[in-house]
């Protein structure tokens, strides 16, 4: 069963790295990528079936957290994670309250694996 994964990060390289890991680790993965919150909202239709969202926390314009909140109004995504190199306590508290997980950058296989199978 192929999974649809939304990857949002303003760094192309970062998206490339994530895609590379996902493609090598997950079989038959379908990746939708966007370089900003606005682009992501544009690309995603209402009630589209997205299994996993990996969103960079620190983006110019709409932040990762704001995007997740906007997305949740359009559709439901079972697994959502914020990617960041630095987790600030207040943000962490906010995110946990919204039911969102944090993943430390840089993403590697182990991190992805444990997240996906959790």
């Amino acid at each position, binding site marked *: 069963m192929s999974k649809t994964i939304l990857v949002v990060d303003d760094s*192309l*390289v970062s998206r490339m790295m994530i895609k*590379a890991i996902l493609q090598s680790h997950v079989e038959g993965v379908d990746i939708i990528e966007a370089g900003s919150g606005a682009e992501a909202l544009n690309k995603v239709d209402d009630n589209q079936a997205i299994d996993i969202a990996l969103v960079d926390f*620190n983006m110019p314009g709409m932040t990762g957290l704001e995007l997740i909140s906007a997305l949740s109004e359009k559709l439901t995504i079972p697994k959502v994670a914020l990617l960041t*190199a*630095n987790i600030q306590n207040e943000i962490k508290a906010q995110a946990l309250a919204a039911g969102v997980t944090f993943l430390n950058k*840089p993403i590697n296989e182990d991190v992805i694996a444990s997240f996906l199978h959790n």
Partner: protein
Amino acid sequence: MTENLTPLEVDALTEIFNIGIGRAANSLNQMVSQTVDLTIPKIEILPNIEAKQKLNFDSDMEISAVTQQFSGDFKGQALLMFSKENGLQLVSLLLGNKIPIEDLSELEQDSLVEIGNVILNACFGTVINFLQSSISIEMPEFVQGNINKIFTYSSEHDWSLYIKVKFSLPSENIAGHISFIMDITSLEIFQESVRKFVFGITSKSQG
């Protein structure tokens, strides 16, 4: 001057340092009682002369800096610089002290060195990890003086990988400046390793 790298390569470099700086912020937060956030707008590779201008320090302004020499695949000097007042302020805020009088005492200098070490090490760390570089790094030192004194060990023909850092604390923001100074040869080797890295990613994501 970042024109020797393609936009993609600049993106990669930015992401590398973003992650490094983010990690540094993480470490700092665990060390101190205040919440600190570190952010960088962009990476620039410039001739030293232009980098010095970017610093926007007057020629007689006192600068407090932490420096670490490095050598190996590429060699040079890493600097984390603050205006003297900003350095004092940062130390004072992070230590939760009343403002130190006029100068950093020797022990307060050590605090600044430790903070600088955390940040520079994090940058070195991500560079080594992502670019697979082999470099050996020296102990951090404290140096204070005007801009010429800080840049004493580099020449006018050297280049800087310059990053402006914003320290966001609850009460205020403090500006710091990072410069990785290398001669032209080292810079080219460094840029080559960035190209190799991007090439690797690109081919992997197409595969």
